[in-house]
């Protein structure tokens, strides 16, 4: 590392050093460093000064996390601001190759000023860029985590852009395609790295970050926890974690969390928590697109991805960000054999001019695409509303869930009774001597047609269940589909909406 002064500066910024982070990341005494003796060389080919760039600014190696092997590249801000130099990048390249070859997850601990310009300036740039190409080849083969523990400026911000999971430390981390100085030079805009690309932007507004954490230790803990839900590669299944939580545990009063007034909001997080093993939930993007919840949890010891509507925000109605968030999460789970559980209470996609201008059709199509493409076990429970295309994207009957269950309060319909009456019967209401009474009558008539027992009587839902049995029903259905094998016609790849 870059010496006592630099380490002190690093600590003064509330940041740990690369090696302290590695100690926290891996099981005790399991890390083996690769490339310790590497350092910067001069452009003329001389050996250069080894003390100038210890390990060339990036600590690379392998170790065990919960007993499973993981490769890690930890950029060392105490050495030339963690800048990405030619030799250091050779080390990281070697790790990426090994990760793909051996089917082992890759973790980047990012704290870097970006490319070392003195080594990269000029048209030798023409030969660069393979790191992103390689990340794309790794995508869906091995888990990729980019932990943001400091700056990550310029093109290197595509490392988190292409990674599966991006935790960000509050205050100290940032990412942007151009750092503040470059922005000033390019466009004249005055900003700071933090204002432009801190966690308050990426975990709340842009959706590039997955979780905001308070400090380095919490960030590393998030990485370890995230990986605990994942297999080492796409040919394996996620590790089980034994639990004392009974698979048949009844949850009395679960339905009480859902208001009987179909217009009223409530916090779906409470429902999710009550259902899963040990009430333990690891939410992805909790502060962005809050009208949908995406989270990892376990049912009877097995990892699952949960997609749940959140009536607390925007009434649970879907918009472009919610569709993007869910589509990305579904694709991630499907890539790594993590079954999906859908908890549905959705009044539909938000409609209107603003939504169309934002391209809701294109974004909503991503969610349709992801849920259709997913071949992992899928279980859907309809708690209350399941209206229109909202029912489809939340893995309705047409999307081949392995179990589709409804609470007695479920309302599966192309739209709600109020909307249906307004659209279907405006003439009757206008012609009536007592429009209010007619409206009410029609509402009652339409409402009678929206009933989960009707859907069940047509065999469109598998069962109407006692809400208190939801946990057991989900576990049984997931277990029943564990041996699922689904083959599709050959194609190079579909044309995925983006």
């Amino acid at each position, binding site marked *: 590392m870059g010496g006592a002064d630099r380490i002190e500066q690093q600590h003064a910024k509330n940041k740990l050093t690369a090696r302290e982070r590695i100690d926290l990341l891996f099981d005790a005494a399991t890390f083996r460093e690769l490339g310790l003796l590497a350092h910067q060389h001069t452009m003329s080919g001389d050996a250069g000064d080894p003390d100038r760039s210890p390990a060339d600014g990036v600590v690379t190696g392998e170790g065990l996390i919960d007993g499973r092997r993981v490769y890690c590249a930890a950029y060392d801000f105490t050495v030339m601001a963690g800048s990405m130099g030619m030799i250091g990048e050779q080390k990281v390249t070697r790790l990426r190759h090994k990760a793909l070859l051996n089917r082992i997850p890759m973790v980047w601990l990012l704290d870097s000023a970006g490319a070392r310009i003195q080594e990269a300036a000029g048209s030798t740039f023409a030969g660069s860029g393979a790191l992103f190409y390689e990340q794309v080849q790794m995508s869906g083969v091995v888990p990729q985590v980019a932990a943001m523990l400091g700056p990550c400026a310029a093109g290197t911000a595509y490392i988190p852009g292409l990674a599966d999971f991006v935790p960000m430390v509050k205050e100290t981390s940032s990412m942007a395609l151009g750092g503040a100085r470059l922005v000033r030079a390019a466009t004249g805009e005055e900003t700071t790295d933090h204002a432009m690309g801190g966690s308050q932007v990426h975990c709340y507004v842009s959706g590039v970050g997955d979780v905001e954490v308070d400090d380095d230790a919490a960030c590393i803990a998030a990485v370890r926890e995230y990986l605990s839900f994942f297999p080492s590669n796409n040919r394996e299944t996620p590790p089980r974690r034994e639990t004392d939580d009974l698979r048949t545990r009844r949850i009395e009063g679960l339905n009480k969390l859902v208001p009987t007034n*179909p217009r009223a909001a409530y916090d779906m997080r409470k429902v999710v928590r009550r259902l899963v093993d040990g009430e333990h939930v690891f939410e992805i993007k909790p502060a962005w697109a809050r009208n949908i919840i995406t989270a990892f949890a376990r049912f009877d010891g097995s990892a699952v991805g949960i997609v749940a509507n959140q009536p607390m925000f*925007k*009434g649970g109605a879907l918009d472009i960000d919610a569709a993007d968030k869910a589509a990305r999460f579904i694709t991630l789970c499907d890539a790594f054999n993590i079954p999906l559980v859908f908890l549905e209470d959705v009044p539909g996609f*938000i409609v209107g001019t603003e939504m169309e201008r934002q391209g809701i059709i294109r974004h909503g199509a991503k969610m349709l695409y992801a849920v259709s493409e997913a071949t992992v076990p899928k279980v859907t429970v309809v708690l209350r509303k399941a209206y229109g295309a909202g029912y489809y994207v939340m893995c309705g009957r047409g999307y081949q869930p392995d179990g589709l269950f409804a609470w007695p309060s479920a309302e599966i319909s192309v739209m*709600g009774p*109020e909307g249906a009456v307004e659209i279907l019967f405006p003439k009757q209401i206008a012609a009536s001597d007592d429009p209010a009474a007619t409206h009410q009558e029609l509402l009652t008539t339409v409402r009678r047609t929206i009933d989960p027992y009707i859907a069940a009587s047509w065999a469109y839902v598998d069962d109407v269940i006692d809400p208190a049995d939801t946990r057991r029903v989900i576990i049984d259905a997931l277990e029943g589909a564990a041996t699922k094998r689904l083959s599709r016609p050959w194609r190079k790849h579909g044309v995925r909406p983006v």
Partner: protein
Amino acid sequence: MTDVKAELVGNLWKIVTEVGQQVEEDDTLMILESMKMEIPITTPVAGVVKAILANEGDVVQEGQTVAVVEPA
């Protein structure tokens, strides 16, 4: 001063606060009716309600400032 904004387009159904009222973070100030749901508009900060910028029955747009809260 912190602007309280509508999260989505809808009909402002009820105002459940008044100017001068003390509020806690996440308190509901208004209820929007949209997508046939009652959607609470909450304050992101604790403080005092300084202004209410819409009336019951108004259609408000996504991102429209409907109240102003002076943080405590």
